[in-house]
């Protein structure tokens, strides 16, 4: 695509185009998200995920990608609820926290294996989500946002104050590495494969949901609840199911997080963290199942990259977020293909214009 038209370009233009073109191949495009079947491109993604840590064998990169994977699991669950069903949740960090504390208490205090704790975490998060969701999901729009926000804050206060159970502000230390039948995930590389393996499984699960009856029900609820119930879709139930599922994802992510960081403390589940996850979903593209993963990788990497600039990191971070939201309001993959073609056309014409041919 680029090579054939090389003559029309200055070398400098290639410098802009090539990364954009490569990005357009990789980045998920929300404008074609309605073609929901699995494609060959998915194998490409899978291969890239499998090979990346081997090619780039730097422990810091591995650790970063482990975190990105965990955030992606969390964002994936939220994406189903926010991006597809169109509901707002600002309390998602609380389910993450419930997962992390369940694992922390079970493994560090009572000596259960992390494998058991992983499933218990998902279960406990979804049970809480069910109990909270039943009354709360009757609310709509801003009111739902406020209610979930309140839930998140209440959870935080409870964690800080119930010192006996959660260790208060200090938290719980000494959570063992994740292990299954004697195999311990004790290096960042192993943890990378663990988190991205779990993420891949959950991604396939979510994608199956999205391309089937369940996904259509979610989109229907988001677009028009009246129309959805007019064809017999049980709107409250659809919302509750996906809320509980999202919480289960968050519980799994929290459990993995506790095992990776070997600690659980309330700082990790604050409002700032919820906003970060919501940003991942929005930047990745609402209603785009690849979006949360792309958003999670981008933001994790960005935060790490900027952290070396100390006091400037936050302002720069927010400026970058604002710019991304302005230029890619539907997610970072938005119509990159179209943009590349537009740029090619623009530069080709400019060259001719300069030569006086047009």
């Amino acid at each position, binding site marked *: 695509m680029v090579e054939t038209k090389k003559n029309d370009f200055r070398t400098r233009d290639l410098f802009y185009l090539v990364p954009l073109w490569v990005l357009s191949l990789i980045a998920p495009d929300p404008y074609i998200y309605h073609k929901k079947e699995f494609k060959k491109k998915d194998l490409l993604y899978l291969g890239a995920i499998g090979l990346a840590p081997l090619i780039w064998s730097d422990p810091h990169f591995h650790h970063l990608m482990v975190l990105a994977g965990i955030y992606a699991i969390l964002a994936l669950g939220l994406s189903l609820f926010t991006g597809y069903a169109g509901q707002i949740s600002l309390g998602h960090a609380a389910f993450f926290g419930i997962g992390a504390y369940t694992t922390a208490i079970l493994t560090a205090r009572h000596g259960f294996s992390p494998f058991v704790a992983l499933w218990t975490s998902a279960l406990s998060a979804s049970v809480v989500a069910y109990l909270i969701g039943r009354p709360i999901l009757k609310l709509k729009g801003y009111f739902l946002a406020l209610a979930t926000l309140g839930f998140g804050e209440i959870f935080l206060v409870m964690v800080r104050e119930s010192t006996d159970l959660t260790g208060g502000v200090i938290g719980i230390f000494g959570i063992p590495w994740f292990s299954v039948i004697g195999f311990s995930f004790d290096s960042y590389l192993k943890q990378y494969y663990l988190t991205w393996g779990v993420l891949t499984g959950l991604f396939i699960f979510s994608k199956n949901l999205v391309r089937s009856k369940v996904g259509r029900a979610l989109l229907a609820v988001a677009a028009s609840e009246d129309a959805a119930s007019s064809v*017999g879709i049980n709107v409250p139930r659809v919302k509750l199911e996906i809320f509980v599922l999202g919480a289960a994802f968050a519980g799994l992510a929290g459990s993995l997080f506790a095992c990776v960081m070997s600690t659980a403390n309330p700082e990790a589940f604050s409002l700032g963290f919820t906003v970060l996850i919501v940003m991942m979903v929005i930047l990745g593209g609402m209603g785009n199942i690849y979006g949360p993963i792309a958003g999670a990788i981008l933001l994790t990497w960005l935060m790490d990259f900027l952290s070396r600039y100390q006091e400037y990191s936050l302002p720069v971070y927010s400026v970058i977020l604002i710019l991304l939201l302005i230029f890619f309001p539907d997610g970072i993959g938005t119509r990159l293909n179209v943009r590349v073609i537009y740029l090619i056309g623009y530069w080709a014409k400019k060259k001719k214009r300069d030569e006086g041919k047009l």
Partner: protein
Amino acid sequence: MSHLSIEEITKEYDGIRALDRVSLKVEKGSIKGLIGPNGAGKSTLFHLISGVEKPDSGKIRFKERDITAMASHEISALGMGRTFQTLQIWGNMTVVENIMAGMNRRLKGSLLSYGLWLPRVRTSEKEALKEAKEILNSLGLLGSWESMASQLPYGKQKLLELGRALAMKPEFLLLDEPASGLTLKEIEQLSERISQIRQEGVTVFIVEHHMGMVMEIADEIAVLHNGELIAEGTPEGIRGNPQVIEAYLRGKRADA
């Protein structure tokens, strides 16, 4: 035996009576028209029947069951489909997905079985796609089955909404002003389509402003005026009814 019967329905909004002790019956397999000037309470009546809103008093029976207190999706599950006065298609889905979402009630399987993509689910999805394409074909929308529903022109979106209601295989269809905004040719096609739906055994209850169309297809017509039922009968009877003529003329004069 009547398919739908409304008994002494009353609905008030902030002290204004939108419907005042309205009683109606719709016979099985018939096409019933509901007409009346703007603000007569037609759409309110439809909202009450489909369960979007609840009446202050009175009863609604559908297939001999009291549906007055039922939730909207439960009523639909009994076999009542509807379209909306203000278009309510799902613009965030493709055309074919809109139809398939309409079949939602008939597709069995839990969230888990869909997530794990069990063989049973796989076949049912495939069949649903096939059936959805057939429905689109019969509506003449198959050409744009993969485009987003929001990108269709208005007339086709109206058809799509009808198709979605048909996809749930209803026994009873509520059509709220299906002809509004359509061209004459489209209206002709629509009336043909509605007669065809009736021949397939579906009862149709239709609110319409386009008099020519209602007079042509309806077996029986009811007239609402200021929340009261002022006349009911065959199209010929309604055409000559002095009360109806006066209600409409007064409405016209007020408009001008």
